């Protein structure tokens, strides 16, 4: 009984925590996307930072490229995500 209650509260708080960081995480993802976009600007026709620098950073960019790739896939749903976040239905 006590264990169940503990699990319930843990779940309750973790969902609370998740919601509280939702906006921040969205902002973080956007920044990561922008960061990757700047580095790979030459692919979309915007000026690119020094090639040396880009090539040096690339190997560490798994997360950012992943975010960018997903963002590219969900491009038309960006308003959907925003609407969901602000609970517009």
């Amino acid at each position, binding site marked *: 009984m006590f264990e169940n209650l503990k699990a319930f509260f843990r779940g309750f708080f973790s969902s609370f925590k998740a919601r509280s960081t939702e906006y921040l995480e969205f902002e973080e993802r956007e920044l*990561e996307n922008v960061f990757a976009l*700047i580095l790979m600007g030459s692919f979309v026709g915007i000026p690119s930072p020094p090639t040396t*620098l880009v090539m040096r950073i690339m190997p560490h960019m*798994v997360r950012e490229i992943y975010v960018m790739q997903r963002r590219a896939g969900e491009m038309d749903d960006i308003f959907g995500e925003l609407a969901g976040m602000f609970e517009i239905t």
Partner: protein
Amino acid sequence: MKEYLIPKEGFRVLFFIGKGGVGKTTSSAAVSAALSKRGYKTLIVSIDPAHNLGDVFEVKLNDKPKQIAESLYAMELDMEKLIKTYLKHLEENLKHMYRYLTVINLEKYFEVLSFSPGIEEYATLEAIREILQKGDEWDVIIFDTPPTGLTLRVMALPHIALIWVNKLIEVRRKILDKRRTIENIQGERKFMVDGEEYELPSREREDPVMKELLAYKEEIEFVRDIITNRDRTSVVAVMNAEMLPLYETERAHESLKKFKIPFNLVVVNKIIEFEEEVSKIKVRMDTQKKVLGEIHKKFRDVDIVKVPMFEEEPRGLKWLERIGGLIIGD
């Protein structure tokens, strides 16, 4: 002797710039020969992809310093090899990430990267940096550069690269700030890509991207600090007494001023002198006179040295020492 050509604070760096075919290589080789003769341990490096430094010294050179005279060493940078090894190294670094990078098909990207605009400038800058980092081995380092356009771009790079890197550091800081805030609420975060788990770094000293950015910034600042320091670097422009090289030298002067790179000397090379008037080349001689007058007017804060056209092509050490003595001024 001109004090901006000899070491003052650590080693001295000299860049010889100018239009194609005005005699940059000969002048720089001459100065290197003259300086080494006076006991300065001198290294002359050709960063021009179309090398002819070896031809001037009449020896075969490669990308390692080769001893020519007692304290004179020379080398020619192999740009193609430099770019290739540079890309190879990066490619290996990237290999284990390939799976996630399918979106941009990196293999193809690498194939064409060596022809990509700008790569030569960056590789040149990288090469200059490497030489400057080992600069303490020498008293004087002389760079024989490719024609003005490319050289000015290379010399502008540290300035431009620093703007980029500072901006990127700013964005990266914001990302790390956000990550830290989220981490404070949610605890340590991981993220999954294709079943593999990655940690999400949130502190500057843990984040490899930030580490690279800061390391790059430090390297570029090192080069910038040397090439903008009056006590360590001098730019020597070589030109002929003709209108086009004059215009080009003026433009170079302007842009070097913009990047605060010290410009000290103009060498006017291949001046034709006749005792009696030769009617066939009178027009030419008049232009020469006019240009020489212009040079004195336009470069008031800069030293000017005139080198006459010699009867034979100045090659080999003896010749070079003679011309070099003329340029450095004993």
